[in-house]
């Protein structure tokens, strides 16, 4: 995929520490349109923390974030959303007591005259997007706590896709899914990629990484081990990076 011109996202020299522990230590990564970049590393390597600086959940202690070459301030999730950055969190970040439509539009509700919620319009839009993503989805009027893992996942994905994301962050999107649903998520990633979105994918399954990603950035102990093009390395090279923290000699 194209790796020319201005990157869609560039996170430059990002550091963040919690109580003296450097969770992310001077890490630089980038992402081009129509590209999937895998973020790999052990638990606690700093992947999720790094990505939360982009989604607005955390604020980096130092470093800059550039979107289309322009430096931007992302202080909270609203700032990230304003930059068309959408996130599918590992925990899904759904309010269990609300229904699918309320979750999909949470923080961005459709309102009618007088600022009153337009629940009917929100449900209609939810039915449309779910009809595309998961045609078997029927449970529109129950709290999402009553949904299966896969259904909950599709609500979280619908939320990210509905608002015309340009940059999508997926934190282990298939961790809780069965084989069929995992396949559906893979297809979705391909489809969104074809539409020109840039996707950061946090993933533990090395096979998924080899299949879905264009490049892989590996982190260890808060530091970036390196970024490689997936089709230039083997899965063993990447595992070596994750485990040993060593960049393979032949990768550029």
């Amino acid at each position: 995929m194209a790796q020319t011109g201005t990157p869609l996202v560039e996170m430059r020299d990002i550091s963040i520490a919690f109580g003296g522990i450097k969770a992310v230590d001077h890490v630089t990564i980038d992402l081009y349109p129509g590209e999937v970049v895998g973020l790999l590393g052990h638990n606690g390597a700093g992947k999720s923390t790094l990505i939360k600086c982009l989604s607005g959940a955390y604020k980096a202690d130092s470093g800059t974030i550039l979107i289309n070459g322009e430096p931007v301030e992302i202080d909270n999730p609203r700032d990230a959303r304003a930059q068309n950055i959408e996130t599918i969190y590992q925990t899904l970040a759904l309010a269990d007591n609300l229904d699918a439509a309320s979750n999909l539009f949470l923080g961005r509700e459709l309102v009618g005259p007088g600022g009153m919620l337009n629940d009917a319009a929100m449900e209609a839009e939810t039915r449309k997007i779910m009809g595309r993503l998961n045609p078997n989805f029927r449970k529109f009027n129950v709290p999402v706590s009553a949904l299966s893992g896969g259904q909950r996942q599709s609500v979280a994905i619908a939320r990210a896709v509905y608002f015309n994301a340009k940059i999508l962050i997926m934190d282990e999107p298939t961790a809780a899914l069965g084989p069929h649903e995992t396949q559906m998520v893979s297809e979705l990633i391909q489809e969104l990629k074809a539409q020109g979105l840039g996707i950061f994918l946090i993933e533990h399954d090395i096979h998924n990484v080899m299949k879905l990603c264009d490049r892989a950035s590996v982190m260890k102990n808060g530091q970036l081990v390196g970024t490689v093009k997936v089709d230039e390395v083997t899965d063993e090279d990447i595992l070596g990076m994750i485990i040993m923290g060593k960049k393979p000699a032949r990768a550029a």
Partner: protein
Amino acid sequence: MTEHSAPPNLGPQGHDLQIGPVGRFLRATELDTRMLGMVGALLLIWLGFHLYGVLVNGEGVFLTPRNLWNLSVQTSVTGIMATGMVLVIITRNIDLSVGSIVGVTGMIMGILQVNILPQYLGLGHPAIWVITVIVGIICGMIIGAFHGWLIAYRGIPSFIVTLGGLLVWRGAAFLTADGKTISPVDTTFALLGGGPYGSVGATGSWIVGILGCAAILWVLARGRAARRKHGFAVREIWAEAVLAALGCGALIGAVLLVNAYPWPKGIVEAYAKANNLTVPEGGLFISHGFAIPVLILAAVGIAMTILMTRTRFGRYVFAIGGNPEAAALAGINTRWMTMKIFALMGMLAGLAAVVASARLNSATNALGDLEELYVIASAVVGGTSLAGGIGTIYGAIIGALVMQSLQTGMVLIGYGDGSYRKVVVGVALVLAVYLDNLYRKKIK
């Protein structure tokens, strides 16, 4: 994840052919079965006390216009605050200070309208009650907002902040007037507490009733139109008719009830004298109609219901209760929301203090003592989950009515001694939560 877009599902959710006529009725009308259960329990309590009176004391006095009218007035102070406590509890907090806020704002209002304002405006000036009410509500709001700030921005648990508030503001209520009782309050202000003059009379009640019926029909029609517009399944027309009949019937029943309770003889004579009327032979029948505090509670209940179900604010309250982290990740400023919720709770406590002190026709430093417990109990009996995320305004009001009915009922059947009342109310609280747990497990 296919390209084609499937048409939205228009049918009702999940067919289940094995349901009886009751199930079909509930499904068609979409009535909240939990609410029906609570109303049923309330009616049972009423009937129980009445029958006990008939059988044991030889006279049933519970189901009389007089008692039910009094019950409605007695419920209003707790009910007004319970609507706010729902929001507090939904967001996984608690407010133990509301009774003390009632006490201190009641004292502030008492001093203001009795000792301060008459000096500048003259005794009985029509602006006195307005200024007093506004100041009382704002004082409550400031205290609540301060609690909310400590909780949200300083990270002190709400239990501790409001436990401190319970002590501080009760002490402050004493200190404002060195423990003196301030009485009587401004005569117009006193009307806000109810009583024969503080009620809207027969005609006023009919106006309220008819406006209310029109509103019920409008809400039903509007809901139907919105569903039509988006092609969702609408209720069958008979089900809509049943809902309209139930809502309007209950309201008109309430109007007939409050209009059936006449002014006491003494008041009628005093009123006739003051207005140069002659009382006819059989006495003059002047209806109380709805008491003003009850109308205040109704207005608060409607406003809070709209807030919770139709606005972003309400949606965010539920979201924070369901998953605070998800709410924050969705861009909701959860701290600011917490502060606003406690400020709103404070405002409602200020309003409750208006009603409570007006009803008493005096401000005392004991006003609202232990009220926080009844307010919390009402919200919880009304189905608000202490685990957060679940609760309704109407539930809390019905809960307040249940609690007050138990207290009143015990007095009426001859157990006026406070100890029995406390035992019954305490048992009812635990039992209600237990039954609610069973119910929630069953529907899951």
